C-alpha cells in the first residue's frame, strides 16, 4: 500500500476519495444549487416574485421592525442556556442590529444580536432574525422556507447537522480530502495535457469512465482546487480557532488598541442614548462613494451598542461590481458624524477577500455565475465517475468472491448521484403541493426531502443485488425516470399553482423563475435520455453473452 510514492498516493486517492466523495457530492451539488439560491427562493416563495429591492429606509421601515425583534432564535437561546454559569434572564439585552441585502434580493434579512450574560465564552452573542418585504416592512412567515438560501445553501457547508457543529467539520475534512485527491490525482496521471483532449465514449465502460473522470478533473482543475480551498478559508475561524482560544490576551490587547485608533468603543457606555436619523448617514455615505467615482447601494448596515449613548452605525457598500467585500464607514449614532472610515485593505486581506468573495459571489456577473455553476457540476461529474470507476473495476472480482464492497459503493453512489437529485426535486414538488398557510410548512418540506432521500437509498440497496452477478443495478435507470417525471411535474405544478408558466415569465423577462423552470425541463430531458441509454445498454448486455470480452481492458499500471 505505502511501498512507494505512487502506490501511497493511489491508496490515498482511492480510499479518501471514495469515503469522503459521498460528502463531497453533497457539498458540490448543493453548492452548485446555491449559485442560484436567490432564484430558487423566488421559485419556492411565489409571494416574493418581485424585482430586487435596495436597502429600505432605516428610519421609516427598519427602525420600527428592529424594535419589535425582542427575542432571539429559540434554538440559539436553548444552546446558550447550556454554556452559562447563571440561568439566562427572561429578557436578554439587545446589543446589535443589522440588515443585509444584495443586488439579487427582493427581500431583506434583518438580524438582532443579544448579549449572553455569565457565558463561559468571551463576548458571547446570540441572534434573532426575520426576513421582510423591504417595500412595506411586512414580515415573511417563518413557516415559508426559502429553499435555495435557507435549505440548499446551509446543506452545502453544514449538511444540516447542527449538533456541536459536526456538519462543518465533516464538510471541512471532505474539502481537505478533495485537495489531497486533486494533488494525488495529478501525480498519478502525469499526462495532464493529453487527458485534456481524451474522451473515448465508445470504448468500453471502464475506459470511458476513467476518461471522463480525468477530463472533468483536468478541465476544471483550478476550480476544484480553489473552491475547496476558499470554502475552508471562509470557515478558518471554526476550523482553527487558534488565536481566539490560545492567545486570547493578544486578541484583547489588539481590540483595545484598535478601539483607541478608530474611536469605536468596545463596550456600551451604560448611559441611554437616542439614535439620530440613520437615513442621513446613509445619504452621507452614498455621497462620499459617488465623490470617489464609485457610486453604489448599501449592502450591509449595522448598529452597535443599541440604545446606548455611544452607539455607532456602520454602513458598507454592496459588492455588486466587485469581488471582495467593501470597506465600512462608521457614524456616531448620537450626532450622525463620521467617527472612522476603514482604510483600504493591505495585500494579505485583498487576497483573503478575493478568495472568499469569489466563493460567495455577491457580484453581478451572470457569465461568471454560470461558469461557477458548471464548475460545480463538473466537480460532481468527476466525483461520480470516480465511484463508477471503482465499481466497474471491481464488480467482477467482487461478484466472483462474494464480496459486497462494490455492491455497497454502487448503492451509495446511486443515492448520492440520482437519489440526491430525486430528493432535491421532491422538495420543489412538495413546495408547490402543500397548502400556502399550512403551519410548519417548512418542516413538512424538509421532512419530505430527507424521507425521499432515505427511500432512494433503500431502493438503491435493494436493486444493487444485481451487482452479485456483476450486472448494472436497475436503480440507475429507475431513478433517472423518477428524476425526469419529478422535474417535469415541478415545472408544471409551478405553472398550475402560481400561473407563472414559461410563456409568462419569459415574455416578462422574469429570469429567476423562468430560469429555474428551464433548468427543470432540461433536467427532465437529460434524465430521460440517460434512462433510455442505460436501459438500452442493459438490454444489449442480456442479448450479448460475450459482453465480458467487451470490458476487458489493458490494466493501467498507475491505477493498479
Amino acid at each position, binding site marked *: *500500500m*505505502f*511501498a512507494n*510514492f505512487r*502506490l*501511497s*498516493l493511489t*491508496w*490515498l486517492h*482511492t480510499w479518501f476519495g471514495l469515503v469522503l466523495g459521498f460528502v463531497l457530492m453533497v457539498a458540490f451539488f448543493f453548492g452548485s444549487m446555491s449559485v442560484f439560491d436567490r432564484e430558487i427562493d423566488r421559485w419556492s416563495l411565489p409571494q416574493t416574485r418581485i424585482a430586487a429591492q435596495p436597502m429600505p429606509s432605516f428610519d421609516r421601515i427598519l427602525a420600527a421592525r428592529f424594535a419589535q425583534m425582542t427575542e432571539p432564535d429559540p434554538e440559539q437561546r436553548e444552546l446558550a442556556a447550556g454554556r452559562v454559569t447563571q440561568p439566562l434572564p427572561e429578557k436578554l439585552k439587545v446589543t446589535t442590529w443589522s440588515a443585509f441585502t444584495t443586488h439579487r434580493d427582493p427581500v431583506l434579512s434583518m438580524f438582532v444580536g443579544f448579549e449572553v450574560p455569565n457565558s463561559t465564552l468571551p463576548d458571547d452573542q446570540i441572534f434573532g432574525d426575520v426576513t421582510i418585504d423591504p417595500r412595506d416592512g411586512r414580515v415573511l412567515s417563518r413557516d415559508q422556507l426559502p429553499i435555495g438560501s435557507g435549505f440548499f445553501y446551509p446543506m452545502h457547508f453544514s449538511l444540516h447537522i447542527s449538533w456541536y457543529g459536526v456538519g462543518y467539520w465533516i464538510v471541512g*475534512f471532505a474539502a*481537505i480530502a478533495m*485537495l*489531497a485527491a486533486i*494533488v*494525488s490525482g495529478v501525480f498519478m496521471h502525469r499526462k495532464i495535457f493529453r487527458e485534456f483532449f481524451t474522451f473515448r465514449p465508445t470504448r468500453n465502460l471502464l475506459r470511458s469512465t476513467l476518461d471522463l473522470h480525468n477530463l472533468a478533473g483536468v478541465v476544471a482543475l483550478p476550480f476544484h482546487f480553489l473552491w475547496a*480551498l476558499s470554502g*475552508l*478559508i471562509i470557515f*478558518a*475561524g471554526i476550523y*482553527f480557532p*487558534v*488565536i481566539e482560544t*490560545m*492567545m486570547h*490576551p*493578544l486578541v484583547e*490587547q*489588539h481590540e483595545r488598541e*484598535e478601539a483607541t485608533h478608530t474611536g469605536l468603543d468596545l463596550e456600551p457606555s451604560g448611559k441611554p442614548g437616542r439614535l439620530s436619523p440613520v437615513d442621513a448617514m446613509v445619504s452621507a455615505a452614498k455621497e462620499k462613494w459617488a465623490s470617489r467615482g464609485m457610486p453604489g447601494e448599501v449592502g450591509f448596515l449595522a448598529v452597535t451598542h443599541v440604545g446606548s449613548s455611544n452607539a455607532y452605525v456602520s454602513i458598507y457598500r454592496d459588492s455588486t461590481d466587485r469581488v471582495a467585500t467593501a470597506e465600512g464607514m462608521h457614524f456616531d449614532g448620537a450626532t450622525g458624524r463620521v467617527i472612522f472610515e476603514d482604510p483600504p485593505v*493591505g495585500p*494579505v*486581506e485583498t*487576497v*483573503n477577500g478575493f*478568495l472568499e468573495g469569489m466563493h460567495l459571489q455577491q457580484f453581478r456577473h451572470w457569465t461568471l455565475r454560470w461558469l461557477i455553476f458548471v464548475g460545480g457540476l463538473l466537480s460532481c461529474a468527476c466525483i461520480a465517475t470516480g465511484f463508477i470507476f471503482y465499481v466497474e473495476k471491481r464488480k467482477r472480482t467482487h461478484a466472483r468472491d462474494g464480496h459486497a464492497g462494490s455492491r455497497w459503493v454502487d448503492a451509495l453512489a446511486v443515492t448520492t448521484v440520482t437519489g440526491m437529485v430525486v430528493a432535491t426535486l421532491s422538495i420543489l414538488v412538495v413546495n408547490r403541493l402543500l397548502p400556502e398557510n399550512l403551519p410548519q410548512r417548512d418542516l413538512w418540506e424538509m421532512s419530505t426531502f430527507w424521507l425521499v432521500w432515505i427511500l432512494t437509498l433503500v431502493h438503491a440497496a435493494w436493486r444493487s443485488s444485481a451487482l452479485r452477478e456483476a450486472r448494472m443495478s436497475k436503480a440507475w435507470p429507475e431513478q433517472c425516470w423518477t428524476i425526469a417525471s419529478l422535474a417535469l411535474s415541478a415545472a408544471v405544478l409551478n405553472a398550475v399553482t402560481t400561473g407563472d408558466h414559461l410563456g409568462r415569465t419569459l415574455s416578462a423577462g422574469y429570469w429567476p423563475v423562468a430560469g429555474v423552470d428551464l433548468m427543470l425541463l432540461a433536467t427532465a430531458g437529460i434524465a430521460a435520455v440517460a434512462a433510455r441509454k442505460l436501459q438500452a445498454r442493459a438490454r444489449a448486455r442480456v442479448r450479448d453473452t460475450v459482453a465480458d470480452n467487451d470490458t476487458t481492458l489493458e490494466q493501467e499500471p498507475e491505477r*493498479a
Partner: protein
Amino acid sequence: MAATTTQSSWHVLSRICAGILGSYLFTWGFVALGATALLAAGLGFHEATDLVSMLGFLIFLTAFCFAFIAASLTRVWLVLAGGGALLTFAGWCLSRSLA
C-alpha cells in the same frame, strides 16, 4: 491493491490517524507560531492572522499527504505530533511575551 504488499490494519489506522490528527496538531502549531512570529515582526493583527490561516490549509494538505507518502510511520508521528506540539508551545510562549 492485491498486487502490492499489504500492511496490517493497525498500520493503516495509525497512518490515517497521523494524517488527520497529526496534521491537525501540526497545522495548529503552525498557525500559533506563525501568527505570533508575524506579529512580533511588526505585521498588522489581521494581516498576520489571515495570512497564516490561509497558508494553514496548504500546510494541512502537505502534512496530510506526507503522512501517507513517508516511508517511516514513526517519523510521520514524530514530525506531525511532536513538531506540532513544539510549534504550539513556542507560539504560546511568544504570544505571552507579546501580550
